[in-house]
């Protein structure tokens, strides 16, 4: 440590060990084109995904760009309000801003017809019974309370259908039951198909084909 020499007026004064400098910035957020169109669908109690071309992935929720094609997603496709839990976590901690009673379950849900999972709550089932592959359906607020927000869906609840034992991760065309590992092979460049050129990723080398 370098020697610090203080003026006489500060000698013997207790050293400052920390400072608190609170900061707040306010923003007026706009959702943008893709999310605005999606949220307008929500006000009709419809879950409308978007895609860049008729053959490309269906994104729910849409964020403005298809990351495979680097393109906007003008095509709208209504997807099912039923889907499969692809991952979840049980929240056991109360935290600021959360009105939820613990424990509760937050899950990634791949809706039928979609290629991207949405994050939402799982309710109407004890938290320790939620599992990957479980089939769930959307539970909406009362019609009078529907607003352009994903919170217009209160939560998802089990449909009672048999589990999807071949649960696929979002983006894969066929299930593996093992997440992104196809035939025990990690998704290296060899098995990744280039969606723009169509090169790579054949069935023979373990890709999507």
């Amino acid at each position, binding site marked *: 440590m370098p020697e610090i020499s203080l003026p006489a007026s500060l000698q013997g004064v207790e050293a400052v060990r920390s*400072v608190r*400098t609170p*900061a707040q*910035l*306010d*923003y*007026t*957020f*706009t*959702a*943008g*084109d*893709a*999310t*605005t169109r999606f949220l307008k669908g929500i006000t009709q109690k419809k879950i409308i995904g978007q895609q860049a071309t008729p053959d490309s992935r269906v994104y729910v929720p849409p*964020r*403005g*760009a*298809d*990351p*495979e*094609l*680097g*393109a*906007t997603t003008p095509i709208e496709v209504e997807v099912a309000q039923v889907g499969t839990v692809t991952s979840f976590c049980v929240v056991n901690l109360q935290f600021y801003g959360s009105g939820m009673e613990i424990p509760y379950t937050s899950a990634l849900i791949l809706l039928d017809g979609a290629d991207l999972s949405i994050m939402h709550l799982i309710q109407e089932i004890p938290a320790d019974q939620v599992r990957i592959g479980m089939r769930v359906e959307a539970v909406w607020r009362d019609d009078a309370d529907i607003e352009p927000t994903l919170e217009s869906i209160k939560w998802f609840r089990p449909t009672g259908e048999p589990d999807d034992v071949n649960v696929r991760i979002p983006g894969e065309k066929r299930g593996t039951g093992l997440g992104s590992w196809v035939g025990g092979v990690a998704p290296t*460049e060899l098995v*990744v*198909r*280039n*969606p*723009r*050129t169509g090169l*790579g990723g054949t069935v023979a080398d373990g890709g999507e084909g």
Partner: protein
Amino acid sequence: MRDVAVISFAQTPARRSVPELNEVEMLMPAIHDALAQVDMTIDDIGFTCSGSTDYLAGTAFSFVSTLDGVGPWPPIQESHVEMDGAWALYEAWVKLQLGEIDTALVYAYAKSSPGDLPMVLTRQLDPITVGPLWADSVSLAALQARALLDSGKATEADLAAVAARSRKDALANPNAQLAWDRSVDEVLAEEYHIAPLRRSDCPPITDGAAAIVLAAGDVARSKVQRPAWIRGIDHRVEPIHLGLRDLTVSESTTIAAGKAGVAGGKVDIAELHAPFSHQELILAEALGLGDDTAVNPSGGALAANAIMTAGLIRIGEVATRISNGEADRGVAHATSGPCLQQNLVAVLEGEN
């Protein structure tokens, strides 16, 4: 040193606010345009680098979402700087110097409209002693302008002349946000905004995006007739504490200009990232520019100042004028931080 050139440049029209689009939606036209100009897709690009800051729109990890706009699948080599895109271009240039890639895509964007920009920019100040004062960016620039006027090196009329010339030149720039034709006297007749700065001495607040494609050697020559070769590029930073600096000069610009080789030939044009009128005077002196250099023919940052983007646009504006034959040799400058804290200088040149 490996020959590396700017081979394409695109920008979105600068606007005060683009509320109908999110960041990636605003950015994509610039990326698509820059790639299309040289008939390339992301599959032809060896490295992608971007410059932006999440503080502007208040959207955490927005630079990850905007990466979707390039189509980063299968996985690409990519990096991001929380700085102006000119520094992203520098990183890409270094990567090209290593010789493992021949092409790079650089982009930058800013949606400043959702927040209160001068307040947002206080968050880049020293967080212990200066940040808590919420010293906004315009007030700090005014401190610098006052120091310059007091030094006797410039008058308020000199500042007004920069403001008037920049906005008049901007009339010919279809992407400019602020363009008009007023006399120096008309500018001087304005009331002070934050003394000694008048509104005309200050930049507009801008939403916008820009993209550049870089290529090395023969790849550049095969794509465009007259690549804008980067003959030198360097950047330097000064202390964060304003009190440690002489605000009337830009030492870091002078050093960077020396390293980049600005004095090695005639400078036909210079695009200086000077958001405030007095800063152009400081920079022109630091760069050693003479009367034979056309400064900011685009109108500069006084005509459009997308944060994190306006510096990259300066490089693009110089490159465009070299590629189309308007100029043979030019200097591009970018700045970052309060009162010209950090500066980048690039020398670009065409082949005859």
